[in-house]
């Protein structure tokens, strides 16, 4: 059509759409005019008025149809139809408010839960990095036998940066760590989270600072030369109230002056999943933040603290980058055999990086599966309800079909109804999903027991909202399509004959039976999953930790925060331990680098045990370790099984000693005694360390299966950050003030970190944390069960009402109540039975999945099934029984009169 055409026709089309009543009226008038003339013509030809009218009407073939045809010409049919359908659907939904509300709530539950769990999976796995073009940002990792995700050392990073061609830029960052921050000199430093990054970090990632600038490459070149810092957006707002004059201000980090040169934008909270760094420092300033006193961050190729990321150059494939890095790793192996024996390197995409590094995402996936099950149960419920409704409207539908409505048209009408329900459900679901996410986020103080700025990465952002919308549409189709299709396949004659004829054809009921089976089985699976999860956590809880948790006070120190050197640090701890031992109320004291079951990573030790010939592909074995003092085993109540604990005679000048746990001893010397044997550090030629004791194996890192563990004395293996554990006779928190007093005598400025009773920590880790997961899964299981029960009850009640007449006749003919019960329940029992079997199979499969992904409870948990299956059965039978019993009470006379 030419442009002038459009100009003319658009107003006409719009007019058709908006002033419909007017247009409709005109059309009627026009046709009426024509009709009258036709009648006049008829009477003029000699027919009587009635005959003329009859003839005219006949020849005009029905006014309505003419109008329909003309309306069709107006090309906006589908839209007006949609409005009509919507209005009709709203009216009929309003007529049954209870049903409507119930449907909307069940859908909202399903959609809300699914979108909330999707936000978890999104936050943990899929959400792209908050930088431009996140797709070509990859992670480079060092790999060994034992670990597919190791970090690189500074020297390795420099080599990768300079000797590869596949990348437009290679950046590195250390982990986020505790840094003592003071805005003004002279104030007590507070703990904040800082992250060291390479000079090209902001530039390569493409982060435009909100204020000032990012680092320059030259600022990261000479160790210690450029004390500059870039602030994180939230930190800037909290600490400096968003004041723009913060640029060029000097702040103190770990006692050293740093100049603020920039502030990161709000769009960049950091590249980490959980942590939002308060500020960023150049790697060159590592000495100020050095985590490990013993290693030289810039020189040691063994000091692996850096995560390396890079942007792929356009045109370079992942394969090419991988190959190039593998070759470089081989070169490292050749040139630096001590540091890089049997180490390779790999390039990971974001997805791989997030899924390989830790296991949190697996929980998210399980949750999503469970939430989808709830949604499915909700949808089957709704589908069943809509089917029943459609059945009771069979007559109306038959009439429409008889009048000439197309089947597609009717299907559209019925689908509109489910679409409206799904939209309402979706909106409510967004609210529920938001509530669930916020509830989860409110628990972040339990999930992260630390001073560092961590946050739960689940948000109701636009991706999650989109998933809500998609789910609503999907559920609309799921719920509405089957009933719509089935109810329009109506046998017109039968439907028109009598209102409530329900010919129990086999094909008809198949749909509903499938729905019931699906509901029961999903529900069973959900319940099983919740039970298994609860058991899994409880199991590890009950299993005892191996050490005493009661009456223990813990508090941590990090003298680097006030710039102590190694000697000062050792002196501090020596004096601290001495003075605490003498303090009244303290039964015993201990110093340990890491608290058992705490949040911090344990150090590792590489060694070669006595008498072992290392295979060619590895230089040493690895084990986690802890640095402790002489009081540790006694204070923690860990028995020494053989040999001795550390003594004050184990000093820096005496021969190196270590204590191993029983797991370790059995691992390497299953037949003999570990006491007296040696382990050589790093290689078979390394420093020999004598094992002087074997301690009982305790749960160190988590409640899962125990692992090898090595202890070394603080005097021989100095470490900066240590935790002080004090056993008290009464309430451990009474000791807080005495500790403060002692610390003050040693140094006024040293902050005490994470002061709490150990029991508090333990409850958090082992109980409150897992409880959150159990709550979530439990509520999903409960929701599924309630929905299934409601669905089953509804189905039974409906069946009874359908067959009221038949039942009435049976009773009149002499059927006993038990017969009636059997009749009604019989079918229900069979369905529940099938559903149970299917549900069992699915639950079993899910258990295997959970075992492989989460915690291995080993084999099949019989108790779970023994509890869940009968419960399920009982509850569903009750749901079926109540309507069935009502059926027996049907008075035959009333039933036969029923229309």
């Amino acid at each position, binding site marked *: 059509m030419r442009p002038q055409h459009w100009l003319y026709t658009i107003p006409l089309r719009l007019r058709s759409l908006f002033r419909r009543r007017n247009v409709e009226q005109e059309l009627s*008038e026009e046709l009426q*005019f024509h009709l009258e*003339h036709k009648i006049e013509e008829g009477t003029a030809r000699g027919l009587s008025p009635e005959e003329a009218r009859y003839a005219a009407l006949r020849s005009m073939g029905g006014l309505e149809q003419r109008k329909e*045809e003309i309306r069709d010409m107006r090309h906006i049919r589908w839209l007006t139809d949609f409005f009509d359908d919507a209005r009709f659907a709203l009216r009929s939904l309003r007529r049954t408010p209870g049903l409507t509300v119930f449907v909307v709530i069940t859908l909202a539950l399903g959609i809300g839960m699914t979108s909330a769990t999707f936000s978890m999976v999104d936050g943990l796995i899929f959400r792209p990095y908050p930088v431009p073009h996140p797709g070509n940002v990859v992670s480079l990792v060092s790999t060994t036998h034992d670990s597919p995700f190791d970090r690189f050392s500074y020297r390795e990073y420099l080599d990768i940066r300079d000797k590869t061609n596949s990348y437009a830029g290679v950046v590195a960052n250390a982990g986020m760590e505790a840094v003592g921050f003071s805005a003004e000199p002279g104030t007590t430093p507070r703990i904040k989270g800082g992250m060291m990054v390479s000079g090209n970090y902001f530039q390569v990632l493409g982060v435009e600072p909100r204020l000032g600038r990012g680092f320059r490459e030259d600022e990261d070149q000479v160790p210690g030369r450029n004390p500059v810092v870039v602030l994180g957006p939230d930190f800037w707002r909290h600490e400096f109230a968003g004041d723009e004059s913060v640029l060029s201000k000097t702040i103190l980090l770990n006692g050293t002056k740093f100049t603020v040169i920039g502030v990161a934008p709000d769009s960049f909270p950091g590249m980490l999943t959980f942590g939002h760094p308060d500020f960023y420092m150049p790697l060159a300033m590592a000495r100020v933040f050095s985590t490990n006193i013993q290693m030289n961050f810039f020189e040691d190729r063994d000091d692996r603290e850096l995560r390396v990321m890079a942007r792929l150059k356009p045109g370079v494939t992942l394969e090419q980058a991988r190959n190039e890095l593998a070759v470089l790793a081989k070169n490292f192996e050749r040139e630096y055999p001590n540091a890089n024996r049997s180490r390779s390197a790999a390039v990971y995409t974001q997805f791989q990086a997030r899924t390989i590094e830790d296991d949190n995402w697996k929980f998210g996936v399980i949750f999503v599966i469970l939430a989808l099950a709830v949604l499915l149960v909700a949808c089957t419920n709704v589908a069943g309800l809509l089917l029943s409704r459609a059945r009771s409207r069979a007559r109306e539908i038959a009439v429409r079909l008889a009048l000439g409505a197309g089947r597609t048209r009717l299907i559209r009408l019925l689908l509109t109804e489910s679409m409206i329900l799904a939209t309402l459900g979706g909106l409510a679901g967004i609210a529920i999903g938001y509530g669930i996410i916020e509830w989860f986020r409110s628990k972040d103080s339990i999930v992260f027991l630390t001073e560092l700025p961590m946050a739960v990465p689940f948000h109701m952002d636009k991706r999650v909202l989109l998933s809500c919308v998609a789910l609503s549409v999907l559920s609309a189709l799921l719920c509405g399509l089957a009933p719509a299709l089935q109810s329009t396949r109506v046998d017109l004659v039968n439907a028109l004959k009598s209102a409530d004829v329900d010919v129990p054809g086999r094909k008809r009921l198949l749909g509903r039976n499938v729905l019931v089976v699906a509901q029961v089985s999903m529900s069973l699976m959900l319940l099983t999953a919740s039970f298994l999860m609860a058991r899994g956590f409880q199991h590890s809880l009950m299993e005892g930790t191996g050490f005493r948790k009661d009456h223990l006070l813990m508090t941590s120190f990090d003298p680097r925060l006030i710039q102590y050197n190694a000697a000062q640090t050792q002196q501090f701890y020596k004096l601290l331990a001495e003075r605490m031992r003498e303090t009244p109320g303290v039964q015993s004291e201990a110093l340990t680098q890491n608290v058992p079951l705490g949040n911090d990573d344990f150090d590792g030790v590489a060694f070669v045990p006595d008498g072992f010939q290392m295979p060619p592909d590895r230089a040493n074995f690895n084990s986690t370790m802890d640095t402790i003092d002489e009081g540790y085993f006694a204070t923690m109540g860990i028995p020494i099984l053989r040999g001795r604990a550390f003594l004050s005679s184990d000093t820096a000048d005496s021969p190196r000693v270590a204590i191993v746990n029983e797991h370790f001893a059995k691992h390497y010397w299953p037949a003999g005694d570990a006491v007296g044997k040696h382990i050589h550090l790093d290689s078979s030629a390394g420093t020999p360390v004598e094992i002087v004791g074997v301690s009982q194996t305790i749960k160190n890192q988590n409640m899962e299966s125990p692992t090898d563990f090595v202890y070394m004395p603080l005097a021989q293996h100095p470490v900066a950050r240590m935790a002080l554990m004090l056993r008290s006779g009464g309430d451990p928190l009474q000791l807080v003030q005495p500790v403060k007093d002692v610390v003050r005598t040693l140094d006024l400025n040293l902050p005490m970190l994470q002061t709490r009773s150990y029991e508090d920590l333990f409850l958090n880790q082992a109980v409150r944390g897992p409880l959150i997961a159990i709550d979530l899964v439990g509520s999903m299981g409960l929701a599924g069960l309630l929905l299934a029960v409601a669905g089953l009850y509804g189905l039974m009640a409906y069946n009874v009402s359908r067959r009221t007449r038949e039942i009435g006749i049976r009773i009149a003919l002499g059927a006993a109540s038990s017969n009636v019960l059997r009749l009604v329940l019989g079918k229900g029992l069979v369905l529940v039975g099938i559903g149970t079997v299917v549900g069992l199979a699915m639950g079993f499969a899910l258990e295997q999945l959970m075992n492989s992904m989460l915690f291995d409870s080993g084999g099949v948990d019989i108790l779970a099934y023994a509890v869940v299956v009968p419960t399920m059965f009982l509850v569903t039978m009750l749901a079926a029984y109540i309507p069935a019993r009502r059926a027996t009470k049907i008075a035959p006379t009333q039933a036969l009169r029923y229309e």
Partner: protein
Amino acid sequence: MSKPNDLVQGTLDLLLLKILALEPLHGWAISLRLKSISGDVLQVSEGSLYPALHKLEQEGWITAEWKQTENNRRAKFYSLTYLGKKQLESEAANWQRLSSAISRVIRLEEA
């Protein structure tokens, strides 16, 4: 619902446009005029007439106005637009070409 087949619809459009080119008429008058001019050969049913008229209106070739008839009744009068005039010319030309071609084929003598 019956959809008029293309050929019939096409020629009907042409006929209606031509009739309205002479003077504005309402629907009833159009059907009478068509009958009388064609000598009762062409009789269009209401089922074809009104949809066709409304289609022509959608396309912008005719325009409608509610006016009083001689008997003082309200009726919807259609008249040709400028665009419609152009359309009429082109369709009439097409029809000429088509009909002469058909005539030529019909008049072929058997060899």
